[in-house]
């Protein structure tokens, strides 16, 4: 327990200390939320964009922590031999994985706190009955993107992982209905994006937290499938050096 808590503390400390991660985790979601709520640049049907953006950006925050932040930090730790070195200590894999996911969840909690306060100040009126469902979706999203992050970090070289993770994040953000409403994308793109983990996460977030919206059952199925599949794949393919 002592080792797990110490490892968790260092994971959080190092994440907070890293400026780039702070940018990706906090300032990008917050900036998107504020900017697109106030400035009508998107040729959108939305009369009140903050009602759509707020739950969508909560989904985006989950993705930024569990995919980008986790993936890039783990990739560089692998590149610099940190993971190899930890392999020769009594820490062990289960506690290392637990500390990694624990730190991601802690960062997400901080992100959500800031983003929810900002959204409320911008005039968001959430469907309060949807909070438990959105929390479950956040956990599933964390597992799905976290698995994907570790799969890439544990198989690619340092720089290749950096590029691939950032690229994937951008593609998922744009096609995931997190900035542009999903229904406003071309039909073919929608069909593909629906099968990826980002769009289902955004759909569950918006469906549960936006007044008058429903979650598509298909989104739960897709999200849960990814949440099971990518951690298994990561555990299978991950190498420590």
């Amino acid at each position, binding site marked *: 327990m*002592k*080792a797990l*808590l*110490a*490892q968790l503390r*260092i994971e959080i*400390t*190092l994440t907070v*200390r*890293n400026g780039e991660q702070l940018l990706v985790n906090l300032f990008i979601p917050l900036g998107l939320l504020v900017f697109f709520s106030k400035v009508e640049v998107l040729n959108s049907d939305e009369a009140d964009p903050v009602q759509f953006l707020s739950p969508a950006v909560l989904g985006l925050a989950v993705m930024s922590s569990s995919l980008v932040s986790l993936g890039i930090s783990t990739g*560089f*730790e692998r590149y*610099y*031999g*940190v993971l*190899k*070195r930890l*392999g*020769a*200590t*009594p*820490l*062990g894999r289960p506690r290392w994985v637990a500390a990694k996911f624990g730190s991601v969840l802690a960062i997400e909690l901080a992100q959500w706190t800031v983003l929810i306060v900002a959204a409320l100040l911008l005039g968001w009126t959430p469907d309060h009955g949807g909070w438990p469902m959105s929390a479950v979706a956040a956990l599933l999203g964390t597992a799905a993107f976290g698995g994907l992050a570790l799969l890439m970090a544990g198989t690619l070289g340092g720089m290749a992982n950096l590029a691939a993770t950032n690229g994937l994040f951008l593609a998922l953000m744009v096609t995931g209905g997190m900035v542009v409403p999903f229904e406003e994308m071309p039909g073919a793109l929608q069909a593909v994006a629906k099968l990826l983990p980002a769009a289902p996460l955004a759909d569950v977030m918006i469906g549960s937290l936006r007044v008058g919206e429903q979650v598509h059952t298909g989104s739960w199925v897709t999200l849960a499938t990814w949440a099971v599949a990518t951690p298994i794949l990561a555990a299978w393919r991950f190498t420590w050096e």
Partner: protein
Amino acid sequence: MSVVEVEHLAVRYGDLVAVDDASFSAEQGRITVLLGPNGAGKTSTIECLEGYRRPTAGTVRVCGVNPWSDRGALNRKVGIMLQDGGIYTAIRPLEAVRLFASYYDSPREPRALLDFVGLSHRTEVPFRSLSGGEQQRLNLALAIVGNPAVVFLDEPTAGVDVSGRQLIRELIRSLSADGVTVMLTTHDLTEVEALADRIVILDNGGVVADGTPDELLSANVSDFSFRAPTGLDVEALGALVGGSVTEPEPGRYVAGVAPTPAHVASVTNWLANHNVLIGDLQAGRQQLESVFLKLTAEREPGNTPTHGGHGRSGRGGRAGRRRRA
């Protein structure tokens, strides 16, 4: 007691042979140095001992345990330094030592340990901003924070300046004095000279010599030289050491016997009794260097490698690091 035992170890990466039929052991509380040129198989060997690699053939034991199959048990008893990297780039020394201390049941006190490795004034500097020597000393601190019985140090002074090396060597000697078994790799002869209780010379993946520095020198070196005032009685001196002593140029003498401590002592005692000042005794570094070069030089097929005290039958004609057809 042997804490580390390596028997007929082979490591192959696909067709590449890194280690081929290497056998040696390391005694408790002693500093054993794996010496060899780059690519000799030192890191592959030590990574088998650390549990990172599964031997392709042969067996390795550390504290009586198989490091590959029983690594969990061994990780509590063993401290390591990787050849490079291994530490979070943004972590600070005190954080790092506290973190690693949390992994072990009865660790050293973090601040006292940083003091021991001379980093107590650098506790809050990010790892990436430390000098090469400071980084290696932090690495060493993390290797010993759990009070290990054995430490494996892969080139502990690589990339460190001269005074930094001295410091690291002193730390390693004090570990050994505390009863810790130390095994380190190096291609640096001054490191061997400064530290080794026992030398295992690896070349092309095989052990070409194994013994104490004294054994290796006496087995492989047949003379030593010194400077003294010209005109000494070389006959009497030769009779004393049991070999010929000559003066090939004025003031320089060559004793035609191995530079064992006994031989060297008898010469210096004789000179002292005759009230003669001795200078520039050539029996150390230069000699080790020549032994090393002789042993690691390209060997013709059929040649038998020379062994020291623990010499075992040579395997002539090994081509070492080679492609298998």
